[in-house]
């Protein structure tokens, strides 16, 4: 994978502080769009109009925010207490290396061994190696956000990185924009903000755009890690194709959309899987329920270890998703 694509996974952008990633994505998108702009909440909206007479409006949404942390206190010795921004598992954080927007790095530690069995975020702190409170405060303020500091890599045809959720969706939109030469419809590439704290960016951007069809690109679970045998929570597995969403906790995709997407995938021999996810929602939740109701769906990339600092997905599934999305955008008739 090209370096410029891998950089998508490294740009700083926890929910509510998406400036860096937004600027980078704008850079990648600007030559493929007629217009790129940020709205009040910070969503990056890139519009590509179609020349086709019967063009409808399609909104493609991938959220550019990542889960992160927020500093709530700096103690006398210069250690930082924090809270999560988005859904975190406390045990995933122990000894993680983290980075701030200004480049300051640190490491997450826990108070003592007694707290480990029932670990809470309150038991964790960040050590940035500052001498004391005053030294720390020169670089860090209460309310500053930080994220994990890991490097993406490719191996066995898979991609491993933090923030695959949902920079993989952002990558899919970039790849689509590069390949889509003659879309039959007006395409709104929307890189949404604040998905991880309650699908907020998609809510306001869909209200403003009011598309005829909305498709979210996001990750879903993968049912193939050890320990998943009896407790089934998702129908998809990594490497078996793009996930065509039927249901999650935010949306039950209208039957005509599911059937249409499947027929397109079969016609173009694109590997796909029917996806039912028992927990979690994506931007399509907000788009679907906007105003008078908007037909919406999600295409998913099955991913292992979602919301950890090393999420893994298959590059073939990403390819399949881009292909299906391209076919959708090139379809003369939409089922709407």
């Amino acid at each position, binding site marked *: 994978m090209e370096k410029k694509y891998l950089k998508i996974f490294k740009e700083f952008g926890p*929910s*509510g*502080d998406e*400036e860096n990633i937004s600027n980078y994505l704008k850079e990648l998108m600007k030559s493929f769009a007629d217009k790129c702009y*940020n*709205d*009040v*909440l*910070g969503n990056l909206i890139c519009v590509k109009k179609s020349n086709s007479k019967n063009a409808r409006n399609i909104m493609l949404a991938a959220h550019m925010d990542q889960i992160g942390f*927020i500093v*709530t*206190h700096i*103690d*006398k*010795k210069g250690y930082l*207490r924090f*809270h999560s*921004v988005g859904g975190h598992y406390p045990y995933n954080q122990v000894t993680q290396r983290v980075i701030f927007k200004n480049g300051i790095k640190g490491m997450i530690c826990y108070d003592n061994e007694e707290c480990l069995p029932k670990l809470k975020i309150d038991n964790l702190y960040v050590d940035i190696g500052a001498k004391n409170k005053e030294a720390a405060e020169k670089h860090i303020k*209460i*309310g500053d956000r930080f994220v994990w500091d890991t490097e993406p890599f490719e191996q066995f045809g898979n991609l491993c990185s933090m923030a695959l959720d949902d920079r993989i969706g952002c990558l899919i939109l970039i790849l689509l924009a590069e390949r889509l030469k003659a879309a039959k419809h007006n395409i709104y590439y929307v890189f949404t903000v*604040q998905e991880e*704290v*309650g699908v*907020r960016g998609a*809510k*306001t*951007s869909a*209200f*403003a755009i009011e598309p005829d069809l909305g498709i979210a690109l996001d990750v879903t679970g993968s049912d193939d890690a050890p320990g998943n045998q009896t407790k089934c929570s998702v129908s998809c597995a990594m490497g078996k194709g793009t996930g065509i969403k039927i249901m999650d906790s935010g949306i039950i995709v209208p039957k005509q959309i599911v059937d249409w997407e499947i027929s397109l995938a079969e016609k173009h021999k694109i590997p796909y899987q029917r996806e039912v996810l028992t927990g979690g929602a994506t931007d399509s939740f907000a788009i679907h329920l906007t105003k008078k109701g908007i037909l919406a769906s999600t295409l998913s990339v099955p991913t292992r270890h979602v919301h950890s600092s090393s999420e893994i997905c298959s590059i073939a599934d990403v390819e399949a998703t881009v292909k299906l999305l391209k076919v959708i955008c090139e379809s003369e008739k939409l089922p709407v």
Partner: protein
Amino acid sequence: MIKRLIKLSNAYGAAGDEKEIRDFIIKEIKNNVDSLKIDHLGSLIAFKKGTNDKIRVLLSAHMDEVALIVDKIDDNGLLGVSSVGGFLPKVIPAKKVLVGKDRLPGAVVLKSLHLMRPEEREMPVSIRGLNIDIGAKDKSSCNVSIGDYVYFATKARQQGNYLFGKAFDDRVGCAILCEILKEKKLPVSVYAHFCAQEEVGTRGGQTAVFNKERLKFNLNLEGTTANDRDFINDLSPTTEIGKGPAITIMDSNIITNTKILDWVQAIAKEKKIPYQFKRSVVGGTDAGPIYTSKEGLPALNIALPCRYIHSPVAIISIPDLNAMRDLALAVVVKAESFKIK
């Protein structure tokens, strides 16, 4: 303002029963605003035209307080209650209360300690297990019906620089909004949305953006937790009283835009108004639904630290209150200089 706040604190108005508060506010501001209406939720919406009417600021504060509601009347005249808004059950027993429209005095009663079995003394309090006795001899003579509200009979009082009382969450917001509306002339127009039903799920906030035009941003005024008396070691309390109003960076339903945060801090520094940040990310206010309504609206939540919030008596600091009024007013006066991009 202190007098007005004391009156507001002593008045009764839980979610769905805000009439007393609303009537008081109407009386206070009706000569200072250009229009005033009550919507179907019970929210009161005032509009005051400023010198520049192209810019309008949405100010909001909620009128309702946490209270109890009668959900059961026993044959022997005792009442059972549920909460309207969030309470710790343990702050409720052995308090003087007022029941229903006629404000019948009564008490939340507990069995005498002498009569309790040892294991009963250890049992946690639950709202469902509590009874209210208004001295009625039986069900037919108690003159109470299901759905009557029950309020703590707290009277506010001042002691030194501190105010004691109930419902500072969010009568402080209401009192400050009144102050702003009483200014002779504001440089920009303001809508003051006195929200109903915040404590049962930010209902007023969910409707506040609609039927209004040219909104530039929202300033929501609130009461918030101050736990500065019980904090552990070197861990921050959420807020501390006496250190100025608290600005929210993030809570359960908002992440404040960094542009508006920088802007308000610059104003506070320029005017030398003390402020602090709310140092926990729990709780939610009307600013949450307001900033994601429609296409989105920048929103800012400034809250007054209150010790023992959501209990019969809270404590606030009067210098904090004055600082919060000054900051809120400065934000409105400088509204034209706010830029999102």
